């Protein structure tokens, strides 16, 4: 959550600016926000009315760019590059970083081949340098590089903006996690009860046994 703390002020800054700007200054703001090296969240800016009003205007291409950074990946950009603006190097870097975050949503072990394909990287050294310098050292992911198995094991990845329709899936995961946890707690309590019962039984048996021994001793004596 460190990353959220770091970018909270930046988000506030751009949301305030977007709310107060009009017309041609908005595209400049969008370019600035999507180039800022410390910002990885864009849905708050997207939600500002003045930004949403770019829809259908001559500047809607900037709105599409913002959407790309909020929800898209490098492959999405390549697929639609004809209808999107040319990205500057800072934007390319950020979109690739966001692509790693999106991939980290799909699984905790990311194969090098898949990463290299998604990020347009041609060799392992270049891929690992990117993951080390631009992802792990930037604080957006934490994990271990496994050269032998040619994969990146993700231990932590910052959350990306929620794509429309993803909320249901998240609610579902949370509910099943809650259910699993409840069941786990229940079964732990049952185990504890069972252990208590067994230990009671054990004690009773032990006592019966000792009584019988005493009785036998009395008989003998």
């Amino acid at each position, binding site marked *: *959550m460190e990353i959220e703390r770091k970018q909270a002020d930046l988000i506030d800054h751009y949301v305030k600016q977007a709310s107060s700007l009009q017309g041609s200054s908005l595209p400049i703001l969008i370019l600035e926000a999507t180039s800022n090296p410390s910002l990885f969240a864009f849905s708050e800016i997207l939600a500002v009315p003045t930004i949403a009003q770019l829809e259908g205007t001559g500047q809607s291409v900037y709105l599409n760019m913002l959407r790309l950074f909020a929800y898209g990946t490098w492959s999405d950009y390549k697929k639609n590059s004809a209808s999107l603006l040319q990205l500057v190097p800072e934007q390319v870097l950020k979109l690739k970083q966001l692509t790693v975050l999106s991939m980290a949503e799909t699984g905790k072990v990311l194969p090098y081949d898949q990463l290299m394909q998604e990020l347009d990287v041609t060799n*392992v050294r270049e891929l690992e340098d990117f993951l080390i310098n631009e992802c792990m*050292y930037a604080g957006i992911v934490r994990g*271990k*590089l496994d*050269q*032998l198995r040619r994969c990146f094991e993700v231990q932590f990845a910052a959350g990306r903006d929620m794509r429309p329709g993803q909320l249901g899936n998240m609610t579902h995961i949370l509910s099943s996690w809650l259910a699993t946890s409840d069941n786990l707690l229940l079964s732990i309590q049952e185990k504890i009860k069972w252990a208590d019962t067994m230990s009671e039984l054990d004690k009773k048996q032990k006592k019966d046994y000792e009584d019988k021994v005493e009785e036998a001793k009395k008989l003998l004596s």
Partner: protein
Amino acid sequence: EEQVLIIREKVAELYESEGEWSKAAQMLSGIDLDSSMRLVDDKFKLSKCVQIARLYLEDDDSVNAEAFINKASFLVSNSRHEVLNLQYKVCYARILDLKRKFLEAALRYYDISQIEKRQIGDETIDEEALEQALSAAVTCTILAAAGPQRSRVLATLYKDERCLKLKVYPILQKVYLERILRKPEIDAFAEELKPHQKAFLPDNFTVLDRAMIEHNLLSSSKLYKNISFDELGTLLGIAPQKAEKIASRMIYEDRMRGSIDQVEAVIHFEDDTEEMQLWDQQIFGLCQSLNDILESMGNKGL
């Protein structure tokens, strides 16, 4: 003896003015400080020892300087003369530095950098001198062999606000955060080093080489489960054999956990933690994050 003393001091002064530091030191060394012929007070003895040591240190001659600093160490504990005491401390730190006892030197430089007074006797302590001592402390800590004590000193320096201003701060930050240092950064750092800090060690590595490779190996072990020596060599900007040699020594000295598969030419970094512990840590981290979220929900009134 009195006359000899005066002549020696005069000649030493002349040598000093010509930058002949060792000759000046030798000239003063001829003064018999333990003479039974006349009474020599401790302050005079201490000042001479420190003066001779400082002269030898001007020529980076730690051996001769140390001989006089050792003599001075018997006198300094009873000395009330702050200027002399400070000069003694600086000499001692520099001797440790020259002898590549970097961690001890760093602690003494750091101690000197924390002097509060700005006027001691007729000497003014300027900020620049303190900053130099602080920078020397950072440099020596970075050059010291990796280990728990070095980590503690790194943490102290990293949290010391004054370090933010130092030219060496970016390196300090990366070393403290256990991040890999790339060749351009290492070369820039090398420019700031003194000759003895770039000297070759018996194993044909320079002091800087060894410190940087060890640091980068430890940093790599935080990022990789395993890595081929070829790739490690590329990553660290050194020959794979060099990387393997230093890695094997660090593993042997138990300063890094891991194993080397020479057939495959791969190093496996071992995480100390058992899987079950790792599981506990992951669950702990999960609960921590969950708490963070609940807390921020609370702060937002949700």
